[in-house]
């Protein structure tokens, strides 16, 4: 099965996964999302587009990414663990898959200007990279709070030629960066593509972002069959908006014996109210263009998410995850900041791999479910990104600057 082959799991023509998804956007944007959907429908079946995308993944992003056995980490999980190494991609995370695909679509649509939102800066850096490569103008919206927390990534984006606009409205974080990007889009939609960074938003974003990331699951399935000789018992990934998770899940979605496990940011714990576990603790609503689980109060006001990981700090989630949860095909649970940071340190120490704190949530999830599988069990964990960007957080959390030890 190819990466762009239509599947029985695709949404309907208006973007519904069961009752989820759709297009809850201003009429002014409908023409743009219609144009994007039509262009993607053509592109996914066009060998020229598919070949060019695959060439960039191979020659620019460095795919296929490795599948690495983590034997010493696995001793702590009580079961065998393999890591899908999206951290080894160019720009350091899975995000490059989606931005290359959407940047190519932007060119096909004859648009010259790309806008994007970013939280931690991973998607912003990836977008700035793809725009530099393909000669597109790039504007990145980033919450003012995040520009301060992630000054190095702001510098990276600017070095790559992107304009970074600090967003001063609302909570000045990721959700407000998305709001501001949507406002820009509705104003400049003729010449502008909104390069959304996760598998959320109005149709066709959840579909095309998923498809650009399906390569993760396709590779992982082939690799684990070759290396371990069988399918895993479970595939584990972190879920903020859910793009890396949906990408790897789809490689195994038709293998009913493979559990699909999404790990959400539990922050200080669900009882504290300070978390981002949208699927575990959220309720149905519409945010940023789609029906999905969202974090909201009794009045339908969106509440702020909290996570030590900026990339998971989002009060919404992609609609397909809401669907997979409802039909029981995937399971979701949270791990706390503390559990994630413990896994972050553990992988660094045992395997010589410093994961992104986002990905450390998936590792913490693996530590939780591993013991129930036993020593003959087999887990594939999506290591969605590398941890270089998280050093400031780690220094502070573990007191590393003062001679502390993780």
């Amino acid at each position, binding site marked *: 099965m190819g990466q762009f082959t239509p599947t029985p799991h695709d949404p309907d023509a208006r973007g519904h996964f069961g009752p989820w998804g759709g297009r*809850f*956007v201003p*009429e002014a944007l409908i*023409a743009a999302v219609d144009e994007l959907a039509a262009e993607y429908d053509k592109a996914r079946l066009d060998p020229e587009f598919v070949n060019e995308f695959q060439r960039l993944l191979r020659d620019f992003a460095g795919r296929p990414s490795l599948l690495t056995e983590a034997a010493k980490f696995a001793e702590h999980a009580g079961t065998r663990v393999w890591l899908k190494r999206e951290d080894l991609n160019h720009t350091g995370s899975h995000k490059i898959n989606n931005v290359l695909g959407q940047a190519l679509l932007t060119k096909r649509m004859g648009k010259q200007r790309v806008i994007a939102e970013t939280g931690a800066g991973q998607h912003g850096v990836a977008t700035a990279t793809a725009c530099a490569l393909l000669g597109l103008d790039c504007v990145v919206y980033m919450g003012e709070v995040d520009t301060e927390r992630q000054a190095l990534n702001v510098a990276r984006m600017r070095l790559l030629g992107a304009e970074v606009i600090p967003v001063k409205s*609302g909570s000045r974080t990721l959700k407000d960066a998305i709001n501001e990007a949507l406002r820009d889009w*509705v104003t400049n939609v003729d010449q502008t593509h909104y390069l959304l960074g996760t598998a959320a938003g109005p149709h066709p974003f959840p579909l095309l972002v998923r498809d650009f990331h399906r390569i993760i699951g396709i590779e992982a399935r082939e690799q684990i069959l070759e290396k371990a000789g069988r399918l895993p018992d479970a595939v584990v990934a972190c879920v903020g908006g859910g793009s890396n998770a949906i990408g790897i899940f789809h490689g195994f979605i038709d293998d009913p014996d493979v559990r699909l496990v999404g790990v959400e940011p539990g922050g200080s714990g669900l009882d504290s109210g300070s978390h981002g576990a949208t699927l575990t603790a959220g309720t149905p*609503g519409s945010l940023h263009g789609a029906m999905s689980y969202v974090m909201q109060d009794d009045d*339908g*006001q969106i509440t702020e998410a909290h996570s030590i990981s900026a990339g998971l700090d989002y009060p919404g989630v992609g609609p397909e995850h809401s669907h997979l949860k409802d039909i029981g095909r995937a399971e979701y649970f949270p791990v706390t900041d503390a559990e994630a940071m413990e896994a972050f340190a553990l992988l660094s120490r045992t395997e010589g791999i410093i994961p992104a704190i986002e990905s450390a949530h998936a590792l913490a999830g693996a530590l939780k479910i591993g013991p129930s599988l036993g020593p003959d069990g087999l887990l594939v964990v999506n290591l969605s990104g590398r941890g270089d960007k998280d050093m400031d957080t780690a220094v502070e959390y573990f007191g590393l600057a003062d001679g502390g030890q993780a």
Partner: protein
Amino acid sequence: MSLSDVFSAARAESRAALIGYLPAGFPTVDGSKDYLRSMVESGCDLVEVGLPFSDPVMDGPTIQAAAEQALAAGFRVRDLFDVVAAVTDAGGRAVVMTYWNPVLRYGVDAFARDLAAAGGLGIITPDLVPDEAEDWMAASAAHGLDRTFLVAPSSTEERIAMTARASSGFLYATAVMGVTGARDVVSSAAPELVARVREHTSLPIGVGLGVRSGAQAAEIAGFADGVIVGSAFVSAVAEGDAAVRALAADLAKGVRSAPATV
């Protein structure tokens, strides 16, 4: 009194209707009642009562800040119905303009029921297109409310026709591609859009986004059935009741200084 009566009454005077927007709860719940009453008394034929929302993607800085202020002051969705009732009790006519998530959370039918009970005439839905409005179509029919969907310069003919069929009361034409906020000049896209919409419907058409002066109101009244003013009223609130009344009076004069089109 229904929305079509509001527009018929204006047409009988050969003029466009003046529609003023203010968020409920801004600057406080009681304050918004007072200002909305002032707008009614000073010439607004219809008021749009906004429901403050945490993530207003269609709004520019002025209305964003007003919504934030209202929410910070403790605004609750149930207060909206009090504000609408206050307008109705004062002899005004009100519709609600709201992002869709608070309605979903309240329950679409319950929201329609409580709005109708407060005397509200309908809902303007900036981020709900007819394609996703099945529940709202049923609830509005059940409770006798009008549905105002939006059309934009980027809307195709097919979508304009579909949106007009799904609407009742009046259609909202966004004069520019962009978010709310006062602008210096009326967009050239507005008359063209209104002309396109008239090919598909006899519903009254209100034009909004960017109107702030009597002169602009007069210009729009030359081709539309309703002139919608939002951010300018929000800004006037900062200057007090006299400024709100003066703005409404200036705009009311504007809609009377150009002959209505129909």
